[in-house]
């Protein structure tokens, strides 16, 4: 092997081998904590501290892994993960999930279990007074069957007016339209409420195994972390846009034309009366009684009595 290039390649091979073999893998007292690593990445370490940190990382596999992960996060490149998918499972699992979905779709009768208002009383806006608005009663008839022609026209007009802003809200980048929320159960109620705010189509619950997802006007639920999905009949008459799950059994979902759905057992749904036919694009839920919903036109409505009364207010300035 007189070729210089081949000799260099051998050195590269040796380097990978030697660097991987000689490093310490266990944590030591000298290992960098997240704060130091972050400061190192952001240039916040002064000369001597930086030199000491670099000297440690140069020989520490553990800290190198952390630095490597940080570098990949920064550049948006995926970090390799442990995957245990073997052979036939790579195609069999999604195929089985799809088959199960089709079976459920066929097996479940498409009926409107959730009653909706026979006539929808459109209330005048009451932001100025900021007084609770009594929600209309919800008779046991389907939304589409019961709507009067006048209501239909009004709903159509409102949809046209709000479609543009709703679409903009739904298609906003991640920074402006945060994805579905979930939180560790250790967090306080206030934190739960904030984290339960959702503008995405996936609804995570504090229990990582339990989640919902919205597809058009349908809702699906998974109790195994998203491997299998069960279609849930909601009878929603309009497209659903967002949801929030403050617990593993309580879920609020909102949609266009003032659709607000609530499930307190995670399986069955009821339509919650809402005072206006306006497109709703976001929801923050504290529990089964307290929720704030955001309309596509910027207003928000809150209830603390599970939707019996709603208080309109301008959208909070985040």
């Amino acid at each position, binding site marked *: 092997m007189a070729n210089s290039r081949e000799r260099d390649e*051998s050195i590269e091979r040796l*380097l990978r081998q030697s*660097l*991987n073999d000689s490093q310490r893998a266990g944590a030591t007292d000298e290992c960098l904590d997240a704060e130091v*690593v972050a400061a190192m990445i952001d240039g916040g370490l002064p000369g001597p501290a930086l030199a000491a940190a670099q000297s440690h990382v*140069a020989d520490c*596999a553990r800290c190198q892994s952390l630095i490597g992960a940080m570098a990949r996060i920064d550049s948006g*490149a995926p970090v390799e*993960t442990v995957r245990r998918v073997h052979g036939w499972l790579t195609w069999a699992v999604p195929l089985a999930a799809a088959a199960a979905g089709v079976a459920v779709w066929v097996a479940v009768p498409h009926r409107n279990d959730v009653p909706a208002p026979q006539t929808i009383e459109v209330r005048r806006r009451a932001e100025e007074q900021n007084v609770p608005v009594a929600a209309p009663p919800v008779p046991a008839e389907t939304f589409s069957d019961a709507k009067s022609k006048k209501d239909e026209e009004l709903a159509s007009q409102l949809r046209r007016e709000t479609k543009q802003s709703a679409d903009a809200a739904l298609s906003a980048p991640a920074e402006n339209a945060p994805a579905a929320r979930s939180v560790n159960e250790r967090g306080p109620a206030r934190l739960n409420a904030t984290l339960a705010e959702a503008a995405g189509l996936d609804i*995570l619950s504090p229990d990582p195994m339990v989640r919902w997802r919205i597809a058009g006007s349908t809702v699906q639920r998974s109790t195994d972390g998203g491997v299998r999905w069960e279609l849930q009949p909601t009878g929603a008459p309009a497209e659903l846009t967002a949801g929030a799950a403050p617990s593993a059994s309580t879920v609020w979902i909102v949609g266009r034309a003032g659709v607000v759905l609530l499930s307190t057992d995670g399986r069955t749904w009821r339509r919650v009366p809402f005072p206006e036919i306006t497109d709703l694009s976001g929801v923050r839920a504290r529990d089964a009684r307290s929720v704030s919903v955001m309309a596509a036109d910027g207003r928000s409505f809150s209830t603390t009595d599970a939707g019996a009364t709603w208080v309109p207010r301008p959208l909070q300035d985040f």
Partner: protein
Amino acid sequence: MRIDRTLVERCYGQAKGERWRAPKDRFARALETSAEHAFAGRSPQARELERYLTSLHLEDLALACACAAGDDAAWEHFVLTRRPVLYRAADALDATGGSRDLADALYGELFGLRGSDGDRQSLFRYFHGRSSLTTWLRAVLAQRYLDRLRASQRSEPLPDEESASALRASSETIEPERERYLQLIRAAMKRATADLPARDRLRLACYYAQELTLAQTGKVLCEHEATVSRGLARTRATIRKTLERDLRTAGLTDDEIVRCFECVSEDAGPLSVHDMLDTGTKDSARKKTVPDRSA
């Protein structure tokens, strides 16, 4: 370390602490802790301390203090601005979304858990403002992710001695001279890398062990990727000279040194760190020559 009240007030104003109603005493304690960490027990001069404190990410520090104190507005701002960042970081760590639960779990610790004395201890107390809050959150998340990965690795069963890979390994016949050449050159390589400056070793580790790109390596070392490339080339040349000198010192002839390098080239070599983590493809994922990662 006590910090002059006037300096605290100046930092508080620079941090716009009033926006989040960050408690001043908590903010002052955060500054003191940060300075103690930075100066490692020694007492800096007043100007040095001021220069350090005013160079911190003070707005982020004030936000962290307000969140640690449980201010609602601060929390809402934090969640709305940092959650997408955390989720993107989680997805970069695990594209399957399997790390999002780690990101979610952080919020509980950030808010704080009540200890036996009833005091709420927030994870924010470890943020000292030497980086942006976003970078710190990413680092915390990355640390949790790697810890979980290591924990899962510890629970992996060892390969069965009767497994196909074990049998294959034991059935390989190794040429005695080849094994000696490999041992010699590997020992020489360890000595050569150990003698390098720390910065050069870190550059090598980022590129060859962590398999970062030149740009990513440059980010870690605060170098331009062209500088990284030149640094790697220079270090490789140094290592090569050291290797050849060491092998000659060990009594090898030029032909034998050539044979040493040939043995390295023929040797499949060990699996990389990432390959070792991926047990499902352990047999097939032999290490290859590193592709050009200049992008």
